[in-house]
């Protein structure tokens, strides 16, 4: 019932907004014809024209090169080494609705830069208003991840994107349609030739598309938060409440850092924690399905907490509206939300920490220090298809605020 209401309001909002954007982004207007020759921030251009990842965490090492540790620990090894042209082409593709079956949604519809590269919704909505059962994960720092989707079923961004692109209830295009549409577009043909000069013939291939979008997604780096300033040695970066939050976060009572381990704030493991579904959704078996292993039933990938303040609502089906709610979940008792008929192998760190209200507030204070969008990419005004880049900026979108309110009523 609630989901239907959500859907209706979303569609109404989408109609209004696509109308607005349509007027301001007339199809057929002149599009970008040359790709960037510089790397985005966070990358250095190498002699062979590739962008190499650079950040202060490269001063450090980590045990067994695992990319987990404490404050001054190295990150996992990132995806990098794409050319500036591939990255820039990927940016255009990412925002272009021509990648969906009916040209209504782009990657950015669910991974909206104005909403932490998520969509502010409990679960995502595909073409024609098709509802998913899981929420859109942020794309910030995906360069450092080694598994994708909430159930961890994919091991590369190239593989991952084929899920939403070709799922009939997400972007719902087909490989044939995608190739046909892009190869029929002279602008795209020229841009792909620029990005892939070694391409044997004139036609765009699927791997070029996957590589470009991966290249762009790998540049969404967020490592300059207040927390990072503290980690690199500036003790004044965090105030007393935030430091108190950090200490609760890493203490063995709350145990947050055992899975949301610095510096990425995820250990990239599957964990069964027994989160409730969004009201109206059936129990989600999670990692049980791809692994065909009942001990992983209800298991999901531990998400990074970087930029977490930007991506409410929380958990795999958005059942927790605020960070406070999400933190409180761990305090409500081991297995409190597990349906009676389910037997789950709950993670050993799920216990009863008995945190006080103040401690939960401090945890929220701390999580709010993990925000950094200083390397926000530029949203293109126009994309080669000429279609409108109709993504919502919630800071100017009152309708959406109402919509969010209705979801949680």
């Amino acid at each position: 019932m609630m989901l239907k209401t959500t859907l209706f309001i979303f569609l109404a909002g989408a109609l209004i907004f696509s109308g607005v954007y349509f007027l301001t982004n007339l199809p057929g207007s002149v599009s970008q014809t040359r790709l960037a020759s510089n790397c985005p921030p966070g990358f250095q251009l190498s002699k062979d024209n590739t962008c190499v990842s650079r950040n202060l965490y490269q001063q450090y090492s980590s045990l067994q090169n695992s990319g987990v540790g404490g404050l001054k620990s190295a990150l996992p090894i990132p995806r990098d080494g794409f050319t500036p042209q591939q990255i820039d082409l990927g940016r255009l593709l990412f925002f272009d609705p021509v990648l969906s079956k009916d040209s209504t949604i782009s990657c950015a519809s669910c991974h909206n830069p104005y909403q932490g590269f998520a969509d502010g919704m409990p679960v995502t909505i595909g073409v024609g208003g098709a509802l998913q059962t899981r929420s859109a994960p942020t794309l910030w720092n995906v360069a450092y991840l080694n598994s994708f989707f909430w159930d961890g079923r994919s091991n590369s961004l190239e593989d991952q994107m084929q899920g939403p692109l070709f799922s009939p209830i997400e972007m719902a295009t087909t490989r044939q349609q995608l190739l046909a549409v892009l190869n029929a577009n002279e602008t795209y043909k020229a841009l792909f030739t620029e990005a892939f000069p070694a391409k044997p013939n004139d036609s765009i291939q699927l791997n070029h598309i996957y590589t470009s979008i991966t290249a762009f997604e790998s540049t969404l780096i967020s490592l300059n938060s207040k927390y990072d300033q503290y980690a690199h040695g500036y003790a004044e970066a965090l105030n007393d409440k935030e430091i108190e939050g950090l200490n609760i976060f890493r203490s063995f009572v709350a145990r947050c850092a055992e899975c949301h381990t610095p510096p990425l704030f995820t250990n990239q493991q599957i964990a069964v924690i027994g989160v409730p579904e969004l009201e109206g959704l059936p129990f989600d078996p999670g990692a049980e399905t791809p692994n065909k292993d009942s001990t992983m039933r209800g298991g999901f990938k531990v998400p990074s907490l970087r930029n977490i303040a930007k991506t409410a609502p929380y958990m795999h089906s958005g059942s927790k509206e605020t960070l406070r709610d999400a933190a409180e979940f761990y305090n409500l008792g081991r297995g409190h939300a597990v349906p009676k008929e389910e037997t789950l192998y709950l993670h050993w760190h799920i216990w009863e920490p008995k945190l006080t209200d103040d401690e939960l507030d401090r945890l929220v204070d701390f999580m709010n220090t993990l925000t950094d969008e200083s390397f926000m990419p530029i949203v293109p005004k126009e994309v080669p298809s000429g279609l409108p880049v109709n993504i919502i900026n919630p800071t100017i979108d009152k309708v959406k605020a109402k919509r969010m309110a209705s979801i949680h009523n």
Partner: protein
Amino acid sequence: MMFSNKWFRLFFPIALFAGGLMIGKSFFTKTASYVPSPVAVRQFSTNAGSDSTGVVYADPLSGDVIEVKDGESILEAVKKANPGDLIRVYPGKYKETVYIDKDNISFQGVIIGGEWPTLDGEKELNDAFLYSGNGIRIENFKIINYKGNGIMGQAGNNFVLRNNWIVDAGVYGIFPEFGKNGLIEHNVLSGIEDAAIYVGMCDNIDVRHNEVYENVAGIEIENSRHCLVENNYVHNNTGGILAFITPGLPIKTAYDIIIRNNFVVNNNHPNFGAPGSIVSGIPPGSGIIVMAADDVTIENNIITGNDNAAIAITDLSMGANLSNDPDSEPNPDRVVILDNYMENNGNNSVGEVKLLMKASLLDSAPDIIAIGGGTGSCIRDRERYNTFGLGDWGQCTTGDTKEIVTMMLDKPVAPRAITMEEKGNLTYYGICAGCHAYDVRMIGPPINVIQAIYANNPQGMADFIAAPTHRREDYPEMPPQNYLSPETRLAVAEYVLSLTQKKK
């Protein structure tokens, strides 16, 4: 009272002398004027002690001494401390969580007439010591009534944790995680509801000369490599010494572990682990458990009176309450059991072992039981013991491990070497490039414009970025970059001035 470095070098021999006198005969009784000598200088220095089979680095105190007395705060001392400093804490009660996000800070409790400096969490505070820095040394503290950990480290290398007396300090007593090259010795721990000493995801750790009793687990080496557990007195825990792979952790392996010369006695304590915790599944009466860990050598231990089994070797199927992890190899391979003294074990087996005994029509459990997979394991003189499930184990051909004195490294883990140019490079691309590009206007002015202003004046640029002023009407004001250290600011200024069109 602050002591200079020089003062210390002068004082050092006197301290040694006084220390020797005190040990030989208690000439000194507690008097108002008695101030104990800072023996830490010796202990944190070359060649600590004569019983040492291990390694302690030549790392003399290089900083100041900060003293903390009853009524004062240890944490405030940490905030004042610089790398190399020693914080000496006098007897008294300290109710605080001491977190250390700095490198090379030493803590030494001063014990006077049996009075210890005591960190008391009063069951309100989470952790006593919480560190992320390298080179943290903590000794001579009594730690009681915390909810989380006595001492917890996240990623600090080259640590020394010793002579601490930890009672009912929560889930773990001493818990270094993600650390390399550490020493845990001469600690006494009891009443811990998980592992008293828990080495989790670490490398090159020695755990020596500790006494652990009345805990759920005495000493646990988990998903760690190159560890030596030696000369410990492990009694009346639920499980004595554990060498585990736990699935679902980001570092997947445990191997090269020596368990040697320990007393593992009467570990029959009822299990009081928290529901759902891994150790809550440990059967009381377990002396040594090897779960999925590889290349574990068990040698010259005295293992007696453990009611379930002296030594149990199992694959991950025993961790029945855990989700599987396709990336965790489940079998214990190449376990080596050399000479050990085992007697009076297995009198009252429980759980899985009991079921196996029943199924095999045996009255009492064996000393050594192996369940599940694994290859390449061996035992010396198996006829000495009652064994179960060791059918495919070979006779050990290796003699002993005495050539391995320590698992610690012969010198401290050095921080990753980084030049000032690299530091400037990482800072420029990692931070500045968000607003500046070489010859393109972004949020801030192009680098080539900035170069014209600060040519040959990197310090001027470093000073400006610490506290920028609004100089250009056509650009927004730059936010201060004072969170970067002065050294980093200068490094990035020099790097920015060195940028050329080609290097951009």
